[in-house]
């Protein structure tokens, strides 16, 4: 390893933090994702007013409230639809979508598929704790089938959703997995994801200390992939076969062109716009 990279940004991580105190449980992995995001934005030296953080519903979807960036805390599962519209209308903004596994893969599952397929230039961060935390611990799409709980005695018996495989098959242009307990590594991934053109998907394993306390053990079981990112879908798919869902790193970097809007704005006066809303 050579000399470390010296940076000279005008911004620090604190510049992206709002005055709103997070209501996440102490020990929640989402604090690590928040730290990683702020460190990544500071590294990229993006002015907060040039960044929009869009979310749906759930513990992790509260994140826009905790940033000093623009934010939209939207409708359950519909964050990607809102973010897509925003990015197409305001392509100069850095658009980040954040949420949880339930919001993204169940309620918003269909939007996830089509966001990957459309390949609009934005980054989607899913803080995956494998449970619906905000509504008191129901199994989510990524919950292991044998997770025993009061609400699902004996487990659901249903195979979990495989977010990376689905993202790859659906056309996402950048796919990575991080671990919230390693915010500096997640920050590095987010920097790469934001810089990479097209739809970037980053799954972050983020422990739910309240309903899935056993996830504290992730710190001993996650492991970094020794491999460089795959550049073809076939190579990426081969790496996903038989993997244990605890491998971190950038899985895939594609070269698809981003979708951009072919909009030709019509110049209209405010009076004309208002007139169009009159019934």
């Amino acid at each position, binding site marked *: 390893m050579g000399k*470390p990279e010296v940076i000279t940004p005008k911004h620090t*991580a604190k510049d992206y933090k709002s005055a709103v105190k*997070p209501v996440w*449980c*102490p*020990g929640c992995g989402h604090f690590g994702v928040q730290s990683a995001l702020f460190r990544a934005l500071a*590294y990229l030296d993006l002015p907060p007013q040039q960044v929009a953080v869009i979310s749906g519903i759930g513990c992790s979807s509260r994140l826009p409230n905790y940033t000093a960036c623009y934010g939209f805390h939207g409708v359950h599962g519909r964050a990607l639809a809102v973010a897509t519209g925003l990015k197409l209308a305001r392509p100069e903004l850095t658009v980040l979508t954040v949420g949880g596994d339930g919001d993204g893969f169940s309620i918003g599952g269909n939007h996830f598929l089509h966001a990957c397929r459309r390949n609009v230039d934005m980054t989607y961060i899913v803080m995956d704790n494998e449970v619906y935390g905000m509504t008191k611990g129901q199994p989510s799409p990524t919950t292991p089938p044998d997770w025993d709980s009061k609400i699902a005695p004996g487990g659901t018996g249903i195979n979990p959703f495989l977010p990376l495989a689905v993202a790859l098959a659906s056309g996402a242009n950048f796919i990575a997995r991080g671990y919230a*307990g390693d915010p500096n*590594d997640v920050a590095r991934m987010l920097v790469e994801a934001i810089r990479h053109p097209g739809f970037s998907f980053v799954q972050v394993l983020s422990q739910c200390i309240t309903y899935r306390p056993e996830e504290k053990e992730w*710190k001993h079981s996650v492991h970094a992939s020794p491999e460089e990112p795959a550049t073809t879908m076939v190579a990426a798919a081969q790496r996903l076969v038989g993997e244990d869902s605890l491998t971190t790193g950038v899985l895939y970097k594609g070269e698809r062109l981003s979708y951009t809007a072919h909009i030709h704005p019509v110049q209209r006066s405010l009076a004309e716009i208002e007139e169009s809303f009159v019934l």
Partner: protein
Amino acid sequence: MNTITTLEELLAHAHALESEAVERYEEMAEQMEVHNNPELAELFHKMAAVERKHVDKVEHLAGDNPLLRLAPWEYRWQTQEAPESVPVGHSHYRLTPYHALSLMIACEERAQAFFAEVARATPDSTLRTMAAQMAEEETHHAELLRQWRSRYPEPEPGWEVDLDEPVSQE
């Protein structure tokens, strides 16, 4: 661990280590405020204030030379984050002062180990002297925190059990 080879790099690491400790302690203080544990909130605020003084001290040591800033993943920590930051996931809303002070002692011990390793590995005598001095200060901080912790009883097993479990908050 990759060796730190210049005084500038050492000061950059010391500055990041203390600054990130301030941020994490403030974050934990806010968590305790939100979760109605005012005693712990005060304790974490106090510790953040102490660490802020250490940030000032590093800035004073740097003098007129601007402190280097590295990419977050380029710092040569032995741990996943800066060693004086309480690791993500080590908090709980029912923490007692004994727990909090134990977390703080562990932070100081990791910081001591970091600086001691820099001192051990460098062939540069100026760097070695400064890193060893920093390691010694961290040892002293850990000792002070141990004395502080001795005022509190060790919590009974089951301290985290809450018969009125948390509900989602609005």
